[in-house]
C-alpha cells in the first residue's frame, strides 16, 4: 500500500500511517511519502511502540522522505 503524506505537518503523517497500518495484515508493507522532516524520527518511533518494522527510510533528492514499513504481528 502507498500513502501520500506530503505537505502534512506533525503529527498528521503519524496519524495517517496509524490509520493505514490498521488496514494491513501482518507482513504487509506500507510505503509512505512525507515532507515533514520530523517524520524520519516520529514514524519509526511510533512503529517501535506498535511493533512494526522499518524496512527502509530515505530522503530523496527532491526532499521527499520515503519510509517503508512492514506490519508486525
Amino acid at each position, binding site marked *: 500500500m502507498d500513502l501520500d503524506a506530503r505537505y502534512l*505537518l*506533525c*503529527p498528521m503523517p503519524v496519524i495517517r500511517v496509524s490509520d493505514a497500518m490498521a488496514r494491513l495484515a501482518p507482513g504487509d508493507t506500507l510505503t509512505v511519502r512525507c515532507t*515533514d522532516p*520530523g517524520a524520519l524520527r516520529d514514524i519509526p518511533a*511510533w512503529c517501535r511502540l506498535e511493533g512494526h518494522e522499518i524496512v527502509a527510510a530515505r530522503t530523496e533528492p527532491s526532499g521527499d522522505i520515503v519510509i517503508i514499513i512492514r506490519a508486525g504481528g
Partner: protein
Amino acid sequence: MDHRKHKAVVLLSGGLDSLLAARLMLDQGIHVEGINFFTGFCVEGHTHAVRRDRQDRQVRNSALRSAEQLGIRLHIIEVIDAYKDVVLNPRHGYGAHLNPCLDCKAFMVGRARSWMEEHGFDFIVTGEVLGQRPMSQRRDTFPVVARESGAWDRLLRPLSAKLLAPTLPEREGWVDRGRLLGLSGRNRKPQIALAGAYGYEYAQPAGGCCFLTDANYTRKLRDLWASRGERRYDFDDIMLLKIGRHLRPHPSFKLIIGREEGENRFLEGYRNRFVHLCAAEYNGPLALLQGDADDAGLDLACAITARFGQGRSAASVRVAVGRPDGSRHERVVAPLPANALAADWYL
C-alpha cells in the same frame, strides 16, 4: 480487594507533568497507555522545522518521545473538526488570547473518557497540577473538568492527588494514594528534580504548547475571521497560519510568503488551491494569494513578492502568476521599495 491489573489512559501532551503522571502510574503496576489529541493548534517542533534553517532544532513529536521513554503505546487522535466548537463557542471564555483552556481540558478529558469506555480502561490520568495554570488548573475548576467531561471521580491527577479528594482509583485501592504527590503552584522544581531522577528528557517550558495562546498566531486567526465576515476555519486555514509571512496589503486579499526553502516547499502543496506567485528569473519566495485581487491588486501582490526575492534591487522583475486550474501568466513589475511596505500590512 480487586487484584486484576487496572488500566489507565494518560493524556500525554509531551510535557513534563504528564510524563511524570504516567510514570507514577507505571510505578504502581498500572497498565498505562497514552492518548494525545491533535486539535490543529498544537505547537510541535516540526511546525518550526519546516523551515530548513531551523532543522538543527528538536524535530520530533514530544508526546511520542514521552511514550518512548515510558515504553507505552500512544494513541494520537485527530480531533480538528470536533474541536472547532471549543474554539468558537467556549462556555467558559478565553484566556489572554483565543485560548479556551478550561473548555479545552474538559473536551480532552471527555474524549479520553469515551476512549476509556470503548477500550475497557478503568480511569483517566492527567498531569495537571493544582494552581499551575490560571484557567484550568485551579481548585474551583478541577471539579468543572471532572463534571463536564463526564469522567467524575475516574479522573486522577497524581501530581496533586494528596491535595484533592480521593478519587475512585484511590478509594478502591487500585492505586496507593500514599505514593501519589501533593504538588501545587507554578514552581516546577519538584517535577524537574523527579525527571532528573528518572533520567527523562522532556519538552519545555509548560504553557507553550498551543498556538491559541500565541499573540501573533491569534492576530492572524482574527484577521482571517474578519476578512470572511464570520468565525470559521478549516484545517488548511490553521496550518497556513503557522507558515510564512502574512501580509494584508488590501482588504480583499492577503499574501502568505515563504521565508526560506522549507516554507516555500510546504506552500507548494497549496498551489492547487490558491493563486500563487513567484519571480520568474530571480530566486525568491513562493507567495500564496488568499482572497480576491483585481489587476491592480495582482500587480501589487507581484511587486511585494518581488520585494522579498533576490531581484528586489532590479528596475523590474517578471513574476509568474499561477492559478489553481494550472493556467499561468507573467506580469512585469517594479519590486516594491522597502519604505512602501507598510508596517500595518504585516499580520
